[in-house]
């Protein structure tokens, strides 16, 4: 007889975090998304997984360079964040939308925070799914941009992306709390930095536990996924075994997969390689495998771009769920 025992040392559940407020919660979202709440590694038989994986599809506040296979799907909506968001939800089945305010970067268009906030309003009106709001990645400007965005989105419980150690995370946390949002705690492939930032958000900025989601950084298949995978798996295991500084749901910038040469280059730069085949099929599967690996490591929320990747990732994670 085959016998199997559950792991006794997995005693601490992951915090469940809601994103989006419906009218019942004082917001205008049509539904609320729940992430986290696990008591075991993903899809393991030790405990029921309470919430399925969620996918949020990117929208940018300006036309940007995208891999050809991705761009094909968005070309006609790229000048209108509202239309873009709608397409993501209606056509591509997005659970959430992420609006990236990249034009605010001083080196891009230096769009003022006030202006950028209007884009957030536009997206909130165009779709009724919960939204994540991202800055440009500029550490000087992001706190101001995100604080302003948080203000116009008051009461909607958006996910503000991101607080990190290299910028004024306190300002971002403060705005999130004041206007009723969640905070994405982003560190770069380092479990100890992740603990430090979470601790600061909780102790110094008083962010309640049910408002923190972590992004421990996603590196693409072939370009550091070995680090990203293990970083997430270690974080999740440490959390399940009681490290209260890590018991939060995780989010992945899965679109990083499009940075891998294998997903966008026309053909191999090396003539010795076997044929790489058509790139329009390589890119989406690169995004799928990158995301799927992290789903197995413990990731909850996926920031993605290609519609096929979204569909397949949802299919497999919901099959295993």
């Amino acid at each position, binding site marked *: *007889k*085959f*016998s*199997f*025992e559950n792991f006794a040392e997995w005693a601490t559940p992951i915090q469940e975090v809601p994103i989006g407020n419906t009218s019942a919660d004082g917001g205008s979202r049509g539904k609320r998304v729940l992430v986290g709440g696990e008591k075991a590694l993903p*899809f*393991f*038989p030790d405990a029921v997984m309470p919430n399925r994986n969620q996918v949020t599809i990117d929208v940018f506040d300006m036309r940007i360079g995208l891999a050809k296979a991705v761009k094909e799907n968005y070309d006609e909506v790229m000048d209108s964040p509202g239309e873009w968001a709608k397409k993501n939800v209606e056509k591509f089945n997005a659970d959430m939308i992420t609006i990236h305010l990249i034009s605010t970067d001083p080196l891009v268009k230096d769009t003022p925070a006030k202006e950028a906030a209007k884009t957030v309003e536009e997206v909130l009106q165009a779709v009724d799914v919960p939204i994540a709001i991202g800055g440009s990645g500029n550490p000087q400007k992001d706190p101001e941009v995100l604080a302003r965005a948080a203000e116009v989105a008051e009461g909607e419980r958006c996910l503000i992306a991101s607080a990190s150690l290299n910028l004024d995370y306190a300002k971002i946390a403060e705005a999130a709390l004041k206007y009723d949002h969640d905070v994405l705690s982003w560190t770069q492939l380092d479990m100890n930095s992740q603990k430090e930032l979470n601790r600061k958000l909780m102790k110094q900025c008083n962010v309640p536990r049910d408002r923190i989601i972590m992004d421990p950084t996603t590196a693409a*298949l*072939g*370009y*550091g*996924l*070995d*680090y990203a*995978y*293990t970083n997430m*798996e*270690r974080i999740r*295991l440490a959390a399940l075994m009681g490290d209260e500084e890590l018991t939060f749901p995780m989010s992945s910038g899965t679109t990083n997969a499009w940075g891998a*040469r*294998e997903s966008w280059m026309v053909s*191999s*730069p*090396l*003539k*010795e*390689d*076997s*044929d*790489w*085949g*058509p790139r329009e*099929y*390589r890119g*989406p*599967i*690169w995004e*799928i*495998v990158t995301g*799927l*690996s992290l789903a*197995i490591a413990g990731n909850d929320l996926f920031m993605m771009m290609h519609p*096929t990747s979204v569909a*397949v990732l949802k299919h*497999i994670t919901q*099959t*295993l*769920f």
Partner: protein
Amino acid sequence: MKINSPLEAYKYLPQTNCGECGEPTCMAFASKLIDRSGKTTDCPPLVKEKKFAKKLAELDKLLAPEIREVAIGVGDRVAKIGGDDVLYRHKLTFFNKTKMFFDVTDTMEEAALVERVKKITDYKKFYVGRNLLLDGVAIRAASNDPAKFAAAVKKVIENTELPVILCSFNPAVLKAGLEVAKDKNPLLYAANKDNWKEVGELALEYKVPVVVSAFNDLDTLKSLAKTFAEAGIKDIVLDPGTYPSGKGLKDTFTNFLKIRRAGIMGDTEIAYPIMAMPLTAWMSGISDPVSASYWETVLSSVFTIRYGDIMLLHSMEPYATMPEVHLAETIYTDPRSPVAVDSKMYKVGTPDENSPVLFTTNFALTYYTVESDLASNGINCWLLAVNTDGIGVEASVAGGQLTADKVKEAFEKSGFDLKKDVTHNTVITPGLAARLQGDIEDKLGAKVLVGPMDSGRLPGFMEKNWPPK
């Protein structure tokens, strides 16, 4: 492994600190045994001297991995599977990368069969200084005819050095295949609850590894494995069935977890390598071939991560094989140390005193990316790999492993003199290390050009900027 501290292994060593193993002390050698970077055979006294024979045998038993290691095939391309000791790669590392076997059938036209076998054999994808390869051929007896099967097996082994799997539930068919391939140590697929007696006898008679198969039935699977082990068959592989979709797939995933967890936790009766069959994706009713191929890659990914040691695959589309071989590499690299190249001056092509000098880091992924970008574009140059402890450009600039001092040190150690060995006294830095430009100029007394962010753009950069004015 039954022990986990060097002290416990030390007890079984000669304790003379003779140094023949290359370690200064027996204790140091014991640590290598525990982290599996050394083998007992590396200690000559232990192996040679009769008086240690008993200790050696005991130690080998204690050090044996929890999951049995099984070898398929012979020669350079032998496929070793299993041999793991942990459930999570960061706890040690996973050993013996998941092996990818691609199917052929005995009903294929000869020309098509040979072509496919060649394609499997010749596949390669360059990655950090080596080629990622496919591992073997699974020959399926679609005809159920012993003579036909034997002929197909013969054709396959004539055309490849790769290991093969003989696939049939019919013992007569398997025997016909074995007669042809008996010197090749093929894997038999498979024994099940109906044919196990005959197939078990074949495994013993021909001394080959064998798969025991029980679809979604771990009790039967375990009892088959136990029966075989008791009959003296050591090289066993487990097939708990791979359902391609729906609840069946969830069950399959759960089965893999349960089997591996039980094995690692010490249930030796089921501590064998596991076989996954992503090719069942083609039987799941997906009609469009791209989608079927995608789904196969999805199944392959799931079971590469969660404990599949060997798998049967069908799609040879590049968009299937490329992510598959990359993911196996990802999960099975040793997480204890970054992969690095020697820190020294490399020649790309045939550089001379007018050729450009560039530097990069000794992180293998970085070095080989840059090197291949230069070489494949015919740029003859000198490329210095600075010792950044195996960290890439951006992370080592951020973490302080790549500094002007480090660059200077690397030039000095390599013996390359910018003032004598080249005429231009110029160095090109990675674009992502631009902020070191001034420092490097000061430290080296040389001119510094900032290169592009991505080495893929070096050809265009060279056209514009080389030779320097």
